[in-house]
């Protein structure tokens, strides 16, 4: 039972887990499930000819943050009875759900990862002073609930991804994946589907055309912006079992600091 399934068992109201959103209405609304589907694998390719073998880090970090945040927001919005208050405290203090980053080449720099939570805490505190304590408890969890695995070789990397996907203690797996066959991606998909875990496989751009059973494929590349914030071009290359309602390419950039540095917008 994954943390998500466990939460569903605990809280009947949480019958459908929210999808992992980009936080960009234009992208999320274009996807059939209003975001990245949970219980599936998604492939993200980063295209920068100057830095070969480099994977995307910023957008997967934001997706991991949003994945965690959406579940915890669901918990926060629920009508907690007096008997479940202790359970609520425990859930929040234990930094659920947990994110496992597999492969050193995909680890986001800790200062940037920590900044995701801290900046939003300041903003949330500004918005609602009464929620300060709870929000602070929630926001630190991505940094503290992240586990970093450094496999020594490619075989071990694949083993670690498989194991993490099958673990009931993990919600999201972000992995720098070596060249893999379609059968391997199928095995990962089945594991993700069965154990309700989600995987973001960060892959080499050269492998973008290799057959895969991933639910979606994304290509991210740097995009020149007129503002003073980094910007990327996000292209949806494949989506299984659903047609796009709008276009398949967007430009996103880090949101202005005043609105929350953890968000991206089109």
């Amino acid at each position: 039972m994954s943390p998500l399934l466990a939460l569903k068992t605990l809280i009947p109201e949480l019958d459908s887990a929210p999808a992992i959103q980009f936080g960009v209405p234009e992208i999320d609304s274009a996807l059939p499930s209003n975001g990245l589907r949970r219980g599936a694998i998604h492939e993200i390719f980063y295209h920068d000819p100057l830095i070969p073998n480099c994977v995307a880090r910023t957008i997967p970090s934001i997706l991991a943050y949003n994945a965690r945040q959406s579940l915890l927001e669901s918990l926060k919005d629920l009508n907690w009875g007096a008997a479940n208050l202790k359970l609520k405290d425990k859930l929040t203090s234990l930094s659920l759900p947990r994110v496992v980053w597999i492969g050193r080449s995909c680890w986001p720099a800790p200062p940037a990862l920590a900044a995701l939570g801290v900046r939003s805490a300041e903003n949330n505190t500004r918005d609602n002073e009464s929620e300060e304590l709870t929000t602070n408890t929630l926001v630190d969890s991505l940094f503290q609930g992240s586990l970093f695995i450094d496999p020594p070789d490619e075989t071990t990397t694949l083993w670690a991804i498989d194991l993490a996907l099958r673990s009931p203690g993990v919600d999201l797996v972000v992995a720098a994946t070596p060249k893999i066959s379609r059968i391997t991606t199928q095995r990962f998909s089945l594991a993700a589907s069965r154990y309700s875990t989600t995987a973001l496989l960060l892959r080499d751009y050269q492998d973008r055309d290799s057959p895969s059973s991933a639910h979606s494929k994304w290509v991210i590349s740097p995009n020149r912006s007129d503002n003073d914030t980094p910007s990327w071009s996000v292209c949806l290359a494949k989506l299984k079992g659903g047609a796009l309602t709008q276009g398949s390419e967007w430009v996103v950039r880090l949101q202005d600091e005043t609105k929350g540095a953890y968000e991206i917008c089109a």
Partner: protein
Amino acid sequence: MCLSFMCIYFPEWAIDVTKRKLLLKDPKAHPPSAILLTHRIANQAVVARACKVSRGLGVKSGMAASLARAIAPKGAIFEPFDPIQDASALSTLASWCLRFSPIVGLDNDLRRALSSEKNDKELLNLDPKYYGITIDLTGTERLHGDPKKLSIYFHSLFKGTGRVAIAPTIAGAWALSRYHSKAHCYCESLEELKLLVNDLPARSLRIGPELESKLSEAGIYTVGDLERISRSVLSQRFGKPLLYRLALLNGTMLEPIITASPKERFVTRRIFEPPLSSRKSIVLAIERLTSSLLDLLKQRGLSALRFTITVKDTEENTTVKDLSLASAANDKTRITPVIVPVIESIVFCGEAYEIAIEALDTVLVSPSQASFSGDKLRDHEAVNRAFNDLLNSFSLRIGRERILRAALTTSYIPERSYRYDSAITKLNSSELQTNEASHQYNLENIPVASVKERPTLILTPPEPITSIAMLPDKPPSWISWRGERLNIVSGFGPERIAPEWWRGNLSEQNALDLKLAERDYFTLQDTQGRWLWVFRANLNDTSQNWFIHGVWT
């Protein structure tokens, strides 16, 4: 009741421990002609302990190892000096001696040095005279019989490596064991003790070298000389510590013994006759032994963080497998999936005749009130246990040093502003909550920049680049990185990060060290939309002072 204490002193304890270690390593090897133990002082190897043979040839403690090599006999072995290991071995021996008396302790000075925070330094400087054991024999006469015979028995028990003395005071036994001409002696009464210690040097009272030199300046060399001087004169001239030492010797004051506490071991062991030949039966035996060990732990309300499996086969091979867990466990359903791969990895060379499993790092299990908490909380704890099991599996396959958590540190220097710690630490509780709590980082006092200010990819080490800046404090116009020229379209900065002067005297450090240079960071965007984090280091060497430190990917 007449008090009786035994002191056992091992003049060459460190050498004996090393000799035994070498023997265990290779039982068939010839004993070395001499053993010398060395340690490093200011990057120089120095002799810490020398065996009797080497000392006879002129080797002394504190002598340079290179010089000792020239003096020592041919075939002498030089081993590193490990005082903590030596003291721990003596502590184990003291625990073993508990079978002779319920009150057994290490020499007080040794115990104090061992339990101090900087025990390695204190033990290094401790006089070897303090490597001894004290046994309180008071009231054990009916058990052991004649004390004189007991002292002879102990001397033979340690094969002549230990000097034994029994006296009515600890100070008396200590002095006799260290400085009396006989390797084993016994004195029944205080009067007899006075006669025996009369000719012993004053340092046998455990006084410091300063006081000893003061006494020798006054012409006092032996305990007898001290006894002949009135106490008031001694107090006025040499202070009260000397009177305290004399009072301990004469029995007018009692000396405490801190009893060594035996470490309880949780081991299940079985010897097989005839030996087990098939792998299947060996695996079955290990599983059964594990099961009985876990039952034993459960009965005692304990769980363990580490297990060791030892298999001895008929070809005299001993296989030891270590099994470290992320959190303490005593549940078979949790241990089995972890222990099975370990068992499979054991290579059996012959027939196994002895298998032992030991639980190490045991912790008390806090009982959970499942009925009070409700089923929901229990389900949630099952998820936590599953996460711990995942850590165990990772740890076994790729090692605990590759299972990490990130932590921020109080530094503005980018590469020092974070660190990775092992996610699997020694816990004091079986609950994951403690595991999580041990990684709760207080972010309040740590400088945290926004995502815009710190890139998600930090290059370690920073890569050198070539750049041209039109103005000194403005972003560069173009940079050359990895052989490609990148034209800069926008950028902002500088953000100055000064070196951390409190980490050392900067003026004495190498001025070319990048870590110690003042940096001006710029955030740049090139024509491709790539955002780069570069800095100019104010190094003395002006040929190369631009570096790229990160990229927003």
